[in-house]
């Protein structure tokens, strides 16, 4: 067996990679734009951390740690560890990135060496989070330094727990077959979080009560306290293992802190060594896990985490119609439509359900609160606007989806502007159709009519086209995608912020260019005919034509950006 710190060669690799990451950043800074990105990103990060500190400093400091704080700490540790263990279902075995996996498995390294190396890497990545949470905890509790070190050690223990769980689960899968593999870990976590948030909202709004007698002595809701909650036998059993961490974090004297800190450090050491010694042949699981994570990273780079990486046999049977003709334009649009239908059916259904839910909830809540006509117009406008932004953010069936195929896309025999339009049109029509149905269904439910509804329905597709075209043109202008965990986080944050501002400014220009002359038209028509309705119609028609013309300009601009796109340069980091 190699020592506690694992293979010297892997330690060398860690040092070389760390130095290499820094070197890459320094090399990038030779270009002035990366300095700008770094400064903007750094300022944003500093302001965020500053806000965290100010918030912690201005919040009520806890002078003496009461039972509530202790229980909250226990619960927090429990939730953190539980989420980590359940999350391990998605990372069975040992995750190794593509440049380490074949090298690691074919080299003269023990499997324990590789586990030690990866745990070391994970802990190094947790240092910053540990520091931040530690400082925040220190500011909120009485014994600042104790809380800081307590939280810091706790945060460094989490990756070890996750790795241990992933190896144990991997061993179980090796022994009992695929049962562990098919346990829907991510789904359980998501459902759990949704249920927790739902219950919290309902409880906060007095829509549910804790039944009498559930908690010791709780005859009514006033007597429900956290310490009584923690005293419940089941809760007590669940939280008991986290008592030392809670005692360490909430300690208010060195004597109270030291034994628990020693225990936590000892546990950390024991856990590190124990996990490294788990005898599981994780090679095949790791190959599968690493391939799965590589696909997920690829989807994140496309900004399309919700879509599947591969097409299922069931969806291939779906006949996708050629909506846009059989020419080159129609072929590109058909390709995109087929990808949406076959690869993203789940995302589509979830988006449709959310829109339906918002429509029903929004209408039910506001029904009868104001005049039905106002309700119809305001709600439809809101639904179309928010729905467009939400769906366009969630359904990235555009150039992000084709990001890794751009060298092929660039060879297609179509004018860049037409290629640009053919790529974004299916998403625009899909979003518009869903919102059209939602707005119309809402109007039928309310059972009234307002002329403005025609305006909402007429403008919605053009507005969607404007936003998607603008968003894609900006994306093609600066397409490098970033995934969490890569180096250069600050620069990417700065770059993203600048691009967000650019999108906002361009959208503002579009709104200004459309609305200002339209208002002028309304004033002129009103002066000439003295009929308010006619002036509204005239202004609306003018704005519609102006927006259509602007969309044409944006598509032309998108084509320019597509022509400018350099596949040798504009690729993932």
């Amino acid at each position, binding site marked *: *067996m*190699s020592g506690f710190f*694992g*293979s*010297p*060669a*892997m330690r*060398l*690799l860690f040092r*070389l*990679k760390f130095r*290499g*990451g820094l*070197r*890459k950043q320094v090399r990038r800074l030779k270009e002035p734009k990366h300095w700008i990105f770094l400064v903007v990103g750094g300022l944003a990060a500093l302001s965020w951390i500053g806000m965290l500190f100010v918030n912690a400093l201005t919040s009520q400091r806890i002078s003496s740690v009461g039972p509530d704080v202790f229980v909250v700490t226990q619960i927090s540790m429990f939730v953190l560890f539980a989420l980590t263990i359940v999350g391990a279902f998605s990372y069975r075995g040992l995750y190794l990135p*593509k*440049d380490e*996996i*074949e*090298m690691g*498995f*074919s*080299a*003269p*390294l*023990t499997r*324990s*060496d590789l586990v030690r190396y990866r745990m070391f890497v994970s802990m190094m990545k947790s240092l910053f989070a540990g520091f931040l949470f530690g400082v925040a905890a220190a500011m909120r509790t009485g014994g600042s330094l104790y809380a800081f070190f307590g939280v810091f050690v706790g945060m460094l223990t989490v990756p070890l727990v996750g790795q241990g769980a992933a190896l144990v689960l991997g061993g179980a899968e090796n022994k009992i077959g695929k049962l562990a593999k098919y346990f829907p870990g991510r789904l359980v976590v998501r459902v759990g979080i949704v249920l927790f948030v739902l219950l919290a909202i309902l409880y906060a709004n007095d829509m549910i009560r804790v039944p009498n007698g559930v908690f010791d002595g709780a005859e009514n809701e006033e007597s429900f306290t956290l310490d009584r909650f923690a005293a419940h036998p089941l809760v007590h059993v669940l939280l008991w293992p986290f008592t030392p961490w809670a005692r360490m974090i909430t300690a208010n004297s060195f004597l109270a802190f030291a034994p628990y800190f020693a225990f936590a450090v000892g546990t950390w050491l024991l856990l590190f060594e124990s996990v490294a010694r788990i005898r599981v*042949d994780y*090679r*095949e699981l790791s*190959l599968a896990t690493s391939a799965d994570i590589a696909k997920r990273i690829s989807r994140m780079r496309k900004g399309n985490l919700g879509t599947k990486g591969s097409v299922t046999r069931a969806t291939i049977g779906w006949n996708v119609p050629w909506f846009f003709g059989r020419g080159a334009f129609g072929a590109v649009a058909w390709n995109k439509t087929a990808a949406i239908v076959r690869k993203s059916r789940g995302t589509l259904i979830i988006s449709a359900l959310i829109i339906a839910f918002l429509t029903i909830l929004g209408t039910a809540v506001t029904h009868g609160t104001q005049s039905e006509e106002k309700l119809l117009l305001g709600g439809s406008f809101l639904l179309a606007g928010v729905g467009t932004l939400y769906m366009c953010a969630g359904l990235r069936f555009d150039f992000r989806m084709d990001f890794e195929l751009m060298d092929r896309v660039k060879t297609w025999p179509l004018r860049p502007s037409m290629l640009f339009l053919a790529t974004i049109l299916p998403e625009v029509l899909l979003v518009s159709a869903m919102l059209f149905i939602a707005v119309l269904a809402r109007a039928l439910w309310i059972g009234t009519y307002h002329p403005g509804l025609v305006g909402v329905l007429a403008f919605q597709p053009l507005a969607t086209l404007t936003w998607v075209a603008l968003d894609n043109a900006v994306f093609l202008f600066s397409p490098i995608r970033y995934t969490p965990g890569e*180096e250069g986080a600050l620069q990417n944050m700065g770059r993203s912020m600048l691009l967000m501002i650019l999108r906002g400014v361009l959208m503002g220009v579009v709104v200004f260019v459309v609305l200002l002359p339209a208002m002028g038209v309304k004033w002129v028509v009103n002066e000439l005919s003295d009929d308010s309705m006619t002036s509204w119609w005239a202004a609306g028609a003018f704005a519609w034509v102006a927006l259509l013309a602007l969309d044409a300009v944006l598509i032309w601009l998108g084509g320019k950006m597509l022509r400018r796109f350099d596949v040798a340069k504009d690729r993932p980091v």
Partner: protein
Amino acid sequence: MPHDLPPAPSPFAAGVPLEVPPRPEVDVSPIGRRVALRVEGFSKTYTDHAAVQDLSFEVEEGEILGLVGANGAGKTTTLRSIAGILPLQAGRVVIRGHDLIEHELNAKRELAWIPDDPQPFDNLTVDEHLRFTAALYGAKDWESRAEQLLTTFELLEKRQALGGELSRGMRQKLAFCCAWLHKPGVVLMDEPLSGLDPRGIRSAKVAIRDLAREGSSVILSSHLLELIEELADKLLIVHKGRKVFAGTLTELRAQFSTAEGSLEEIFLAITEPKGT
């Protein structure tokens, strides 16, 4: 021969057990030459199909074995299992006298693996790759050999280039340099010449021959049958996971009753789908 005994574990070698490594069993072929790699009854089954079934073969020291088969024949699965990337499901692999399961680290110390699409570390320079590889395999006095390899593969000017900046061919050349650095006893190559320019191909061919001349055994898996014909001393043809032939090209021609037929013609004939 440089490989009579396994090298003493270097303090720099990764995961080296502190105890003295077991003495390798002396493995000799029927004609008296030392066997560098012996594979016995190797099988590998995935969830829905058997990738390799009961495959046995051996490679002698200094021999180049051409591994040939259609797509999905099980070549890469075989190589990855010998390299220790995939666990050995059934069968036995002995590398320079070290059993891959019982003495995994000693066996792997004798191995070098060159995948079809090498993935260097994005942020490490070419020099740093060599430094890390030397540490990993416990190679001593490696600098002069590294210099020589960089010259052979025309990477001298790229030694400060980052892995992420290298072209496909350059990545392949770097993989050769890393594989050659510790003078491995057995080298496994999966489509090693893909992505190389004509000069790179020439250098790689010469280097493979030189490596074999130094005593290393090479398993070369490739669809380039002319390359196999040119370099390989022996052939192993697999089809649908089973061995259909193992021997020299002369023996192959004799077995399939053709004196002049190229490897390509014979290969196509024996792997032709039934009924065509």
